[in-house]
């Protein structure tokens, strides 16, 4: 097994991709630590070469499409999935051989997983009961937890008498009431309707901050990941693509996958036609050329992909140093902003998301789109960011 990583990781406090050194200092800074973890089901490798350290008290999101291994990783922390090789530590203690019920983990499921035959009180008290907490103490803590999720007085109700959002709050209360070392959230918002989802997003974040608990959140929703996380781990096909703060992964995607998965970036393929120090001119496959700023000098003739966020692509005339002309294919009016799809020729269609200042560009209209040479990210021919 190798420990090399294919992609450069931005170094950041809190989360690091470096294998843990196992020292005492590392142990009390990190709530959860993965070292070269591999998880396979028969021949199928669900997770490969996964190394990650999660700082105490941080909110880390595993983001990726379904089947990328993010849920498998979450379940391996809980002990619901056995790892094939490598090691996992929780609070500095190796847990490879610790059975699930001794791991002291709070779990929130997508399906809520409340016990339908038990009252809200018994549901929330469940973890405390198995920790031999005295009765009076249980009642007090359950009351506190329900207070925290803003459902005081719901003790005697059955889960079936609550709405989806309320059930998820109870599930959250049940997972944090016994003060677990880590709170694991497995797509907890995806069963809720859109309005409820946003409310719960804020709520979960608030509770996580108030309790200072380490939270690991799994989602395929980039908006959830960007709005809630201290750090985002972008996953694809069982491997880690990038780790960073929401801004880092959004603004400087490490790979083509991250650029595309987070925010549907425009990817313009081309070759370097002229180099002038940090500046370079890229001849796009679409037929026009743009000038870009590269963090390191580019070789003439190198194949690159210019990644531009829809928000950085401006349809207003006269803006930006790069001017590309194209024809508007569609215009979606969103009130404060509009999303344009613009055909640059050569089967290249870009998306631009602009605040509306003047008039809307209509379908079929020929427009100029521009972006700042520094407002893009360059990927090399392997789809890795040029840094």
């Amino acid at each position, binding site marked *: 097994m190798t420990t090399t990583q294919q992609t450069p990781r931005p170094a950041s406090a809190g989360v690091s991709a470096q294998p843990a050194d196992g020292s005492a200092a590392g142990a009390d800074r990190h709530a959860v630590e993965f070292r070269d973890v591999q998880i396979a089901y028969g021949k199928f490798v669900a997770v490969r070469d996964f190394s990650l350290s999660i700082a105490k008290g941080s909110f880390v999101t595993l983001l990726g499409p379904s089947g990328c291994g993010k849920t498998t990783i979450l379940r391996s922390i*809980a002990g*619901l999935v056995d790892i094939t090789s490598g090691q996992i530590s929780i609070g500095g203690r190796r847990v490879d051989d610790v059975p699930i*019920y*001794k791991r002291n983990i709070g*779990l929130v499921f997508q*399906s809520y997983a409340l016990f*339908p035959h038990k009252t809200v009180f018994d549901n929330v008290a*469940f973890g405390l009961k*198995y920790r031999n907490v005295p009765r009076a103490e249980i009642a007090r803590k359950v009351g506190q937890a329900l207070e925290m999720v803003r459902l005081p007085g719901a003790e005697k109700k059955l889960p079936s008498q609550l709405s989806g959002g309320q059930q998820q709050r109870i599930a959250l209360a049940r997972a944090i009431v*016994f003060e677990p070392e880590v709170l694991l959230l497995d797509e907890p918002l995806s069963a809720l309707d859109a309005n409820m989802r946003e409310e719960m997003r804020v709520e979960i974040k608030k509770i996580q901050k108030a309790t200072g608990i380490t939270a690991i959140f799994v989602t395929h929703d980039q908006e959830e990941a960007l709005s809630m996380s201290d750090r985002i781990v972008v996953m694809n096909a069982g491997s880690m693509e990038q780790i960073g703060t929401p801004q880092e992964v959004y603004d400087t995607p490490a790979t083509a996958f991250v650029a595309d998965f987070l925010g549907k970036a425009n990817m313009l393929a081309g070759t370097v036609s002229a180099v002038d120090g940090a500046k370079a001119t890229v001849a796009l496959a679409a037929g026009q050329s743009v000038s870009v700023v590269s963090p390191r000098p580019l070789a003439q003739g190198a194949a690159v992909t210019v990644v531009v966020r829809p928000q950085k692509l401006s349809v207003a005339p006269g803006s930006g140093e790069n001017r590309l002309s194209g024809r508007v294919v569609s215009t979606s009016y969103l009130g404060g902003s509009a999303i344009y799809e613009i055909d640059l020729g050569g089967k290249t269609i870009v998306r631009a998301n602009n605040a509306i200042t003047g008039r809307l560009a209509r379908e079929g209209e020929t427009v100029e789109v521009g972006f700042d040479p520094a407002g893009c990210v360059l990927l090399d021919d392997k789809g890795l960011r040029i840094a």
Partner: protein
Amino acid sequence: MTKGWTLYDPRLAWMLVAPVLLLLIFFLLLPIAMMAVYTFFTFVTAGVEQGTLTVANWHEFFTDSYYHGFLLKTLRVGAMTALICGVFGYFPAYFIWATTFKHKWLLLLLLIVPFWISFTIRTFSWINILGEQGVINVTLLRLGLIHEPLQMLYTEGAVILGLLHFLLPYMILNVYVSLESIDRTLISAARSMGCTSAQAFREVTLPLSLPGLAAGLLLCFVLAAGSYVTPQLLGAGRDALFGNLIYDTIMGQLNWPMGATLSIVLFVVLGFFAAIYTRYMGMSQIVKGLGG
């Protein structure tokens, strides 16, 4: 206002339901009602009764302890059979549910296979196993462990064994279906909060599978208490159940009014247990179990 027919027209619903309703009325409700009327007819002599209304049959039933004894014995045998079915049926159901074996349907098929053979033949097979010349006795005699055949056939034990053989699949299917309806993440949730697997079973799996167990118990109880072929073939005269009593009264003594009275008694008593069950559990569980 249009008079057109739609798929959701209540008239259409009634028309679709009508055949079943008619069937139930003519082949179930009416016969039972006729039986109920018969209980008030006067028995003259074997095969002859008069339309003169009397409560003599009911009087006889309520005062003759001979009938009470049979009724109690029938309920006892039914209850014992149901309980044994519950105990022995839960484990296979749990196993089929919990196994990671790829071809689970094969295991379920195994439960259904016995139904391919006539119930009567299946019951007869026990004679070859338990009888004086049956497999068990012959083997034990040859081995010299016993010197004369054991009396196993024509005992209450043989009757209960035969009923178990007949009813166990119903119990297993009922329990299996209720286990299958349990969301397995509930068990993961319980385990993550500190339960060992045994504790998770006690806290989650067992209570949530109780409706299936209860449905199986009721079904086995009612079918066992209403059985008459099994005690007829595997029991001696004293092991007869209420069903055999009814058969004997109608076919042996040709006393139709008394036979009708006893039939209505069994109908009411078993209906009473089913009603209690429905009150607390709902009938849908049994329907699920039979369909599953």
